[in-house]
């Protein structure tokens, strides 16, 4: 089976977010870049599928040079090769632009059996990529998978919804997005890291994929970014425990409007 995993590089969750002077992006200098945790589940699942059924695992990522590190770490886990979509026009685009570029790259990898990707990246947190890719590639999709079972020509996927689980069946090829709980990603072994240095990462730009600037023009723009508003000083509630409790509930309803 040929499994393609779309991988995104994101700031790690420890990063102290600072807004850049232009006001619509974060400062990238002190950022520690990692593979999005949801994509790690996707890489792990791809490796397990290859272990069970043979085949290959190809990683695809879009972004500037630093994205190579993310691809290498996936290769160190055991993926076979990588494709780096490197194009400033793609970087300046929105999620749809990225999806078009990735779909373009995926088209060069046809035939493949499954596309796996994390259900969201913890940067933009849009969670759109799986659906966008599936539509652009005209493939069925199952999102937020917590269990994937490959059978001949189809996949049986358990999916998380509010208050429950759904079981879906899809024909292959398909796009499946991965959720926490799907698996426990393996560590990259020493041998894996050393081997990764020798694996191929192919670099392509939008033109090579036949995608023109118009297709990459963003349809959604970030015009401003800010840190969450500072909190006002705490409102202390006085009285005995019973009074405090009632007053708290009243404030939570009337003032804070959270209950």
């Amino acid at each position, binding site marked *: 089976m040929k499994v393609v995993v779309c991988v995104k590089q994101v*700031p790690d*969750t420890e*990063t102290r*977010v600072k*807004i850049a002077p232009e006001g*619509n992006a*974060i400062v990238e200098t002190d950022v520690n870049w990692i593979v999005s945790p949801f994509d790690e589940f996707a890489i792990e699942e791809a490796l397990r599928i290859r272990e069970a059924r043979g085949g290959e695992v190809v990683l695809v990522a879009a972004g500037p040079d630093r994205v190579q590190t993310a691809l290498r770490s996936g290769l160190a886990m055991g993926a076979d090769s990588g494709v780096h979509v490197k194009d400033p026009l793609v970087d300046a685009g*929105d*999620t749809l632009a990225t999806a078009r570029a990735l779909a373009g790259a995926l088209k060069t990898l046809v035939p493949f059996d499954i596309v796996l990707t994390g259900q969201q990246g*913890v*940067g933009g*947190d*849009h*969670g*759109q990529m*799986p*659906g966008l890719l*599936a*539509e*652009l590639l005209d493939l*069925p*999709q*199952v999102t*937020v998978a917590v269990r994937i079972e490959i059978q001949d020509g189809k996949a*049986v996927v358990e*999916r998380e*919804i*509010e208050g*429950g689980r*759904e*079981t*879906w*069946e*899809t024909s292959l090829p398909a796009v499946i997005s991965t959720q926490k709980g799907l698996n426990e990603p393996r560590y990259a072994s020493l041998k894996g890291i050393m081997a990764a240095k020798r694996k191929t990462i192919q670099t392509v730009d939008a033109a090579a994929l036949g995608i023109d600037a118009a297709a990459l*023009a*963003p*349809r*959604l723009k970030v*015009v*401003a*970014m*800010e*840190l*969450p508003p500072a*909190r006002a000083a*705490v*409102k*202390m*509630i006085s009285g005995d*425990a*019973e009074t*405090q*409790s009632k007053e*708290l*509930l009243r404030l*939570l*309803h009337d003032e*804070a409007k*959270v*209950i």
Partner: protein
Amino acid sequence: MAVILTFAEERGGKVRRPALEVVSEARRLADALGGSVASVVVGSGVGALATELGSYGADRVHVFDDPALAAYATEAYARIVSQVVTETRPAAVLLPFTAVGKDLAPRVAARIGAGLASDCVALSVREGRLEARRPMYAGKAYATVRWEGEPQMATLRANVFPLGAPEPGRPVEVVAGSADSSARARVTATRATTAGKIELTEAQVIVSGGRGLKGPEHFHLVQELGEAFGAAVGASRAVVDAGWVDHQMQVGQTGKTVSPTLYIACGISGAIQHLAGMSSSKIIVAINKDADAPIFKVADYGIVGDAFEVLPKLTEAARAYFAGKG
């Protein structure tokens, strides 16, 4: 005249509350734009839902009622919504940010080539166009976004946009539609997960306990308060390290990072490692015996008191409150 199109997610014969919140917001935006609101509802036996949608502000409802559409299927629903978009040429398309919405919206966006802003927590009109506010970087920053072209697509976070006051009997036009219901991926089974364990990272309300509870034998006070609020239960690292509760419940720098609408910290001092995990909660309530505890620096509401006294009273009051709400 601008049309704001909404997707009315249905479950069990009812429009789901988040979808009604979307209609309410669409109504507000349409009024600001001098436009109208249309909704599309898909399923089996859903014709009657048009009335309810109308009462929340829809002027027109596109109904796709077909036994073959009873269960949600991405490709079929996406095809239908796109079809309605082509027909009505809306200025904006809004969906709820639910499991279905998250699955459906991007599919539609790619199909019609529209920009999609996910998980919006605020929407407004500026110079005849929409502007949205949405979280990024796990809630550590908020972005203001605007669209190029039309339709302007957005998914709206649940429990944030107020439900309008329904106007029963408000006139609504119903348009019946039909479409190809084929899909290569389908639901084959559904099951409810065992009641109780709400996943911390997705919970809207969290009640957490710390060392102020003095011992594992008292932690039930936190759990009971959690139950009263319908909340997920978390814990500080101190009590996890001490073995009172499982690591799965740990909130903090090395545990889970949460961003609920309401976080109630009981007997938690507010060490910075803990704050790192919950500081992006919308509203923080702190209950602690020590008025100098650092948690009060980040809390919105504070109760200085003994957890053993306050928690039972608060639990009682909460039970009464939520029971009364019905």
